[in-house]
């Protein structure tokens, strides 16, 4: 991958990677750090991707793993009282605030399902969780979001 190609990839996938990280971590600064690590892994990788969808899928999986590493780092290195509040979200929006108020695993599943449009099977692969667990997480997320989403969906 050339520098020009990498710059294009950052342009193309940067927002998606950042949103996945933000939906997991809830803090802009941490999400930017994770986005950086995930995109640099793409830069360092000599992996050949079969399609754009393959690239997206790989990047999301790397991002999810980086989020876990970041969360573990926080747990080990930052006293609970020093963990920043999730106050640096963009302007307050009802749905976004509600989503970000969900437990981490629920909001990641919800984001991947409702925003990225992945199926429960694909989310299971992305997050290394059983498909039944993903369905359960989505169901619980939907219960919390039903009022806002205002729709009935068969997950």
């Amino acid at each position, binding site marked *: 991958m050339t520098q020009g190609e990498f*710059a294009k990839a950052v342009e193309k996938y940067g*927002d998606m990677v950042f949103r996945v990280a933000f939906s997991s971590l809830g803090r802009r600064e941490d999400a930017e*750090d994770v986005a*950086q690590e995930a995109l640099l892994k793409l830069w*360092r990788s000599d992996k050949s991707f079969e399609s754009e969808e393959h690239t997206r899928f790989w990047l999301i999986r790397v991002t999810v793993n980086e989020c876990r590493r970041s969360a573990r780092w926080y747990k080990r290195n930052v006293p609970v009282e020093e963990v920043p509040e999730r106050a640096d979200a*963009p302007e307050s929006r009802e749905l976004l605030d509600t989503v970000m108020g969900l437990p981490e695993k629920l909001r990641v599943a919800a984001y991947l399902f*409702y*925003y990225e449009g992945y199926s429960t099977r694909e989310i299971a692969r992305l997050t290394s969780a059983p498909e039944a667990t993903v369905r359960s997480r989505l169901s619980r997320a939907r219960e919390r979001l039903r009022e806002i989403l205002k729709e009935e969906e068969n997950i």
Partner: protein
Amino acid sequence: MKNRAFEEAFSDVRLSDTARERIIGAAIDKAPAARRRVLRPMRVALAAVLALSLLTCTALAVSPELRDMLWGDFSGEAQNYSPDESAAQVYDGVEARISSALTDGYIMRLHVEFRDTEGDRLREIYEKNKELHQEFPAMGINVEGPEGASGPMAPYDMAMICVPKIIAFDGETGILTLEFFQQTMNPPEGMNKISLDIPTGFLGTKAVTEEVPAPEGMYLYTDDDGYVTDTARPVETMTSVKIGWRLTAPVETLTVRHSGTGPLEAHVSDIGLTVYAEMGKAPAGWNSDMTVTLSNGTALTFGNGGLAGTMSGGIADRLLTTVEFAAPVDVSNVASVTVGGEEIAFE
């Protein structure tokens, strides 16, 4: 199942332009790190820390068995570098020692043994890596000559990086062996040394950063017109410790240029083949469909195991592919290479 309300809610959750610039800049920097987890620049303190904690070691510790395992058919005669006074260093209690080195200037492969002289950090890192399959940060190998170095540090616009991978961990001695494999686009004339810059912070050591002037040609950020270099803006980079080996015998390399679909340049050494092409002018399959034909008619391909791993990269419009031979090849016996269907004969 996409949801319109969800899409609208997240539409403004976007990676900032500042973060984009930093990410692109970090791809060029040899040791990118998350901003929050690095120390502030301390040039003076750094010099003191390094002066106190660096310890030069000269012994060579790799066992013949391990070398055979690592190098296979390349052990022995193809090992063209040997240790000198900079073969090993200790930083923050972790000793780094090059155990073998091989390069023809284009392909660089190093094996480095690490040992924690003060604790058991490497065992923890090995166990964690084994469990989580996490990658180490990228760093750079340099090929140096009388006039300077070539590799990730100089010049920046020829940057290549490598991500080390674990080769072995000895539970009894606590020695962690990592492999570094990298290509370089522009080996220096009269190369005589191969070296590795190991960033502080690697393998659990204390991380120290410093601000350095942006080198000429290093892209810092992009604007509407493309890449922009701002040499007035310093770059925050991780300091590093250098280890290296000296070249013990000249490396014989054959070079040939060819004009077909587009200009191609091929270099063959006893360890591999390197091909340059221009973006948009390379024949289809130029970096995957390759054959090296020997004067006795033997064809080395990926299919018959004659060619081993390949790695592609490039900067701007100059593309590069390196291919390692599965076993050493006498360059005087190489008759031609075929790249993407175009045969390039060696006189």
